């Protein structure tokens, strides 16, 4: 049986081809150029503000850039922070990814339970809804009492920061499976517990993935609070030291590194998601 589909995928693809060929250089670089406009303007404003001495407390972009090089590879100031970027970055990354993994280990099963089992929802949901608005900063003193000064507290706080977005999106994902899919599965001979693995989990993956992405973002977001717990190394620790020592260039360097590391880590996750969720029309971030 030959089928000629109306408005087929093949026809759409061939129509797009000539357009791609005539694409100009500008069209190719447009996203990059547009993305750079705001940072460049901000940098220019920063330069003007510091050279005009509107403030004396913030160093010039050049001074920060120079310090960033020293922070990364050393050889300019040779102080306590020279060439320590990698150490601090790795320390922070281990807390971010460790805390995030811990959060995922707790949030995924609890979220699935709350989403699928009404008793679990009634038992846990009200409690978690009350706990959720409490900021990670507020947990800092208690965390230091419970887990002591140091890395364990940092893990706990990062974990807490990443926990709720993973939890909420998992609950949403497993609850909002199209009921038709359960009917389709059962008339195809897939019943009971098998439906959990064959229908609920795959249907929930886009939401779960969104939760993991937000959770990882928040893990980077709370890293400074997490490292206020008296850990010697880490980007958060560097920023807190910079504040204590009134070394604003150190603070700004730490901020930039956190921003870039968080951004790159998110891009990797998005690329992974685009691959794993290529079936989902809503997931082409």
């Amino acid at each position: 049986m030959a089928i000629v589909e109306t408005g087929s995928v093949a026809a759409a693809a061939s129509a797009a081809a000539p357009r791609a060929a005539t694409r100009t250089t500008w069209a190719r670089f447009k996203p990059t150029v547009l993305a750079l406009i705001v940072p460049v303007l901000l940098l220019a404003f920063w330069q003007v503000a510091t050279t005009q001495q509107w403030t004396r407390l913030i160093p010039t972009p050049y001074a920060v850039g120079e310090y960033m090089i020293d922070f990364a590879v050393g050889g300019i100031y040779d102080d306590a922070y020279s060439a320590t970027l990698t150490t601090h970055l790795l320390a922070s990354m281990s807390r971010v990814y460790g805390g995030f993994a811990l959060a995922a280990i707790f949030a995924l099963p609890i979220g699935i339970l709350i989403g699928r089992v009404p008793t679990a929802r009634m038992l846990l949901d009200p409690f978690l809804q009350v706990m959720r608005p409490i900021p990670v900063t507020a947990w800092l003193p208690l965390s230091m009492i419970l887990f002591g000064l140091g890395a364990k507290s940092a893990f706990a706080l990062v974990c807490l920061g990443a926990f709720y977005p993973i939890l909420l999106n998992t609950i949403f994902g497993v609850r909002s499976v199209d009921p038709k899919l359960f009917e389709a599965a059962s008339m195809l001979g897939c019943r009971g517990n098998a439906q959990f693995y064959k229908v609920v989990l795959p249907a929930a993956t886009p939401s779960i993935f969104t939760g993991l992405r937000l959770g990882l973002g928040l893990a980077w977001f709370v890293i400074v609070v997490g490292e206020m717990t008296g850990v010697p190394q880490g980007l958060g620790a560097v920023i807190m030291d910079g504040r204590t020592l009134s070394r604003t260039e150190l603070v700004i360097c730490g901020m930039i590194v956190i921003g870039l590391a968080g951004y790159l880590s998110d891009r990797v996750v998005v690329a992974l998601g685009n691959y794993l969720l290529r079936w989902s029309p809503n997931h082409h971030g």
Partner: protein
Amino acid sequence: MAESATPIVEIKGVSKVFRLQDQTIHALSDANLSINKGEFICLIGASGCGKSTLLRIMAGFDQPSSGEALMWGKPIAGPDPSRGMVFQDYALFPWLSVRANIGFGPASRGLGAAEVKQIVDKFIDLVGLAKFANAYPHQLSGGMKQRVAIARVLANDAELVLMDEPFGALDAMTRERLQDELLDIWERTKLTVVFVTHAVEEAILLANRVVVMTPGPGRIESDNLLDLPRPRDVASPEFNAIRRVLSAKLHSHHGKKAA
């Protein structure tokens, strides 16, 4: 279609009552219907006539409030692979490729990978989607999605195919093509098809029996055997004569209600 043979499906005095807050809705009232193997039956009627409810009871998704729904003489207790449903909005698994969607039933039955592949190859060819075997549902047009849904049911060895306005969301050209393909598959496979529609023309084109249903409460108004030769021509006088009779049966009820 011998009259004496056991019917594949029997609906005996089936009623379905839904309660919505304080309201009681009689979706279906005392329906009786006997379907023989190999028939192509269209259930036709305005919205609220209970045609989808009746179909869902045959599928085993809903249970009758009273009366009996039987398949091969045994009560229909729940969904079963022998009764495949084709939904209006496809209900394909979006995370599975065309191939895996069609193989879902056979794989759930526990068949081996090689066997599943053989079955999938056969039915993917039957619906003409071999080129799109590895595409995902969101990459397909509505007509192609519905072909996957049909292949998925056939691949599962369904004896009875239940179709709930399957072509309602498609454009006219695609609908015509799919109607032809469905008839072709039905003639070749000797399946039994129960097809819900609200379009008189579609019913006459496809069915060998048209069951007219009327709303408020939903009930079977008449059961009409069509002995129009195939292929049927929508423009022929015979076709139009039948269309007039069936339209009158559908609308006579409206007149009574309005008066």
